[in-house]
C-alpha cells in the first residue's frame, strides 16, 4: 500500500486533499504555499504539472499553468518540486498531469522519475482507462497508485473498467465540466457517491467546484472519504502572490476552516 492508501486507512473523517500548481506563482512561492497547506492540515497534496493546453481546467488553474510556464517551469523542475516538498514533509503526493507530459517524457521513464522523486500516485487528466494500459502497468511496476476520474456521465460499464484499472482512491467529479470554484455544491456529488460506493473498496474523494466550508460539511454528511480543493486554493495563491506572509496566513485559514467541517 502507498502512503495514499495508508492515510485513508488512518482517518476517521474525510481526508482534505489540496491541489497546487507546481512552480506557481514561482518556485519559491510554490514551496511557501505547499508548506502552508501542509502545516494547516492537508492530508494529501495534489501537485499539478503546468501544461500549455489544460482543457480540463477552468480559468483560475489555466492562468496558473500559463504563469508557471512563463516562469520557466519544466518537467525536471516538476520532479524537483516533489523533492523539495519531501525535505520537510512525508505527506502523500499525487501528481495531476496532462497526457502529453507523460508521453513525451516516455511513459515508463516518467513513472520511474516520479517514484524516485518521492511521489505516491499519478492522475492523468486526459487519459481514460481505454488509453491507459501502458500507464497502469508502469504505475504498478514502479509502486505508484494510478488514480482515475469518474464523472456523473460515466456509464455503469465504463465505471467497472475504471474501478478495475485504478488504485489509491477514486476521484469523483461532482459535476460535468471543468475545474473551478462554484458557489453551490452540485447535488450530483452525493448521488455519485451512492452509485460508486457499493462497487468498490477504494476510498471515494470528491472534487470540482468545492470551495466553501459548507461544501465540506455536506460531503462529510454524504460520507465521502475525501474532498479535493484546487481552484479555491490557487485563487488565494494568485491573490497574494506578492505577499508570502499574507498568502501563508490566508491559505492556513482556509484549510483550517475546511478541516474543521470535515471533523464534524
Amino acid at each position, binding site marked *: 500500500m502507498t502512503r495514499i492508501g495508508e492515510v485513508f486507512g488512518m482517518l476517521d473523517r474525510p481526508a482534505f486533499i489540496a491541489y497546487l500548481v507546481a512552480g506557481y506563482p514561482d518556485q519559491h512561492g510554490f514551496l511557501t504555499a505547499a508548506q502552508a497547506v501542509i502545516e494547516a492540515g492537508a492530508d494529501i497534496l495534489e501537485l499539478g504539472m503546468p*501544461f*500549455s*493546453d*489544460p*482543457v*480540463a481546467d*477552468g*480559468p483560475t488553474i*489555466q492562468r496558473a499553468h*500559463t504563469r508557471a*510556464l512563463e516562469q520557466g517551469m*519544466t*518537467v525536471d523542475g516538476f520532479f524537483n518540486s516533489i523533492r523539495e516538498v519531501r525535505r520537510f514533509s512525508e505527506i502523500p503526493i499525487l501528481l495531476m498531469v*496532462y*497526457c*502529453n*507530459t507523460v*508521453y*513525451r*517524457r516516455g511513459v515508463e521513464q516518467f513513472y520511474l522519475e516520479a517514484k524516485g522523486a518521492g511521489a505516491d500516485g499519478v492522475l492523468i*487528466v*486526459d*487519459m*481514460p482507462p*481505454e*488509453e491507459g494500459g501502458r500507464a497502469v502497468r508502469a504505475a504498478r511496476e514502479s509502486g505508484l497508485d494510478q488514480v*482515475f*476520474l*469518474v*464523472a456523473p*456521465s*460515466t*456509464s455503469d460499464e*465504463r465505471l467497472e473498467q*475504471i474501478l478495475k484499472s485504478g488504485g489509491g482512491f477514486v476521484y469523483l*467529479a461532482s*459535476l*460535468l*465540466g*471543468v475545474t473551478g470554484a462554484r458557489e453551490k455544491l452540485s447535488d450530483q456529488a452525493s448521488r455519485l457517491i451512492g452509485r460508486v460506493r457499493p462497487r468498490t473498496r477504494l476510498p471515494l474523494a470528491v472534487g470540482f467546484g468545492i470551495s466553501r466550508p459548507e461544501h465540506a460539511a455536506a460531503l462529510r454528511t454524504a460520507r465521502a472519504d475525501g474532498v479535493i480543493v484546487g481552484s479555491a486554493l490557487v485563487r488565494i495563491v494568485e491573490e497574494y502572490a506578492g505577499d508570502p506572509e499574507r498568502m501563508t496566513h490566508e491559505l492556513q485559514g482556509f484549510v483550517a476552516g475546511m478541516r474543521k467541517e470535515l471533523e464534524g
Partner: protein
Amino acid sequence: MKRGRFGDFGGQFAPESLMGALSELEDAFRRYGNDPGFLSTLDSYLAEFAGRPTPLTHCRNLSEDLGCRVFLKREDLLHGGAHKLNNTLGQALLARFMGKKRLIAETGAGQHGVATAIAGAVLGIPVEVYMGEVDIGRQHPNVFRMELMGAKVIPVSSGTRTLKDAVNEALRDWAASVGETHYLLGSVVGPHPFPLMVRTFQSVIGKETRAQILEREGRLPDAILACVGGGSNAIGIFHPFLQDRVRLIGVEAGGEGIETGRHGASLCAGSPGILHGALSFLLQDQDGQVLPTHSIAAGLDYPGVGPEHSMLHETGRVEYTSVTDQEALEAFALLSRREGIIPALESAHAIAQLLKMAGEFERDDIIVVNLSGRGDKDLAEVARLRRGPE
C-alpha cells in the same frame, strides 16, 4: 486496427466528462451513417443548398505555363466559399437526428465558423462559435457573416488566442453541456470518432473528383495536391484514391521558413504527441508543451494535424512538404492573374507546391489541385502586405 486508431495514431485522450458524449456520438454516427433517410436528406442539402457537385476545372493557361495538364477541384464554389460546409451540414444534420438543441464550434480563419453558422441557420439549430481574439482581429468580415446568420461569436482570450485555444474553450464548454450540445469540430482532428466522421463527410470531394476525371479523361490523375492544416480538405480528396497508383502530396504551412521555427508544419517538423484528444504529429518542445505556430493562412495556423495524416506520413503513402508564406503569396497572385480565380491563402499553398514541382511532370500528366476555398476573405490581408510595413 484498434478502435479509433490510424496505425498507432488517433485514440480518445479525453477528460472523463467527455467520454460519454464521445461514445454517444460514435453510436449515432454508426447508426445514421448508413441510414437511407439520413443520407438522402444530406445529399439533397448538398445538392440543392450547398451546390454539389462542384466543378473540376481544366486550367488551360496554367497548363500551358507549366507543361502538364492542371485541373482544379472547385471547393471554392461551394456555398460559403470553402469545403467546410460538407462537414458542417453532415454533422449538424447528425446532431438534429440525435435531438441536440445547440451547436458549438471553434474557428480560426472563420471559415469553419461561417460554415457552422450556415448549417445551423438552415437546419434551425442555435450556434455558438469560439474564436481567438487574435483571429477576430484579422478576420473581421467572417465575424460579421457569422453574426448575420444568427451565430454568437465568443472571443477566446486564453493561451495564444488563436485556433488551438478556441478548440480548448469549445472542449471546456462541451464538457459542461454534453447533454443538449453537439460539438461540431471542423477538421479531421480531435478524439475518435471525429477524425473518422469528418473524413467521411469530406470524402465527397474525392469521390466526385474520381468520377469527374474518369468521365472526362477516361483515367485517374497522376498526382493530387492539397494543403494540410488539420487536414480535412486533403483527407477528403485523398481518401478515395489511397488504393490507386496516384501520387498524393500534402502541403503544410512553411510560414517564414521551417528553419525560423515560425511555421505550422507539424508533419514536416514536428514529432508524435497528444493534443485535443488524439496522438498525432505535433509542434512541441522537449517537455511536450505545445509551441506557438505561424502561417499567413489562418486556416493552417495550427500546431497539430489529423491522426490519419500522421499514419499516411509514416507509411509514406502520402508525401508531405511545405511552402512558405512568400511562395503562397506568389501562387495567390499567379492563379488570380492567369486563371481568373482568386484562391484562399490556404489553397494557394497547394498551388505553390505545384509551381515548385512542375518540372517533374510530363506534358500529358494529369495533376489535380484541391482548391479548398476562395480568397475573398484574404483580400484585405494581402492588400496590407503589398502596401508594405506601415
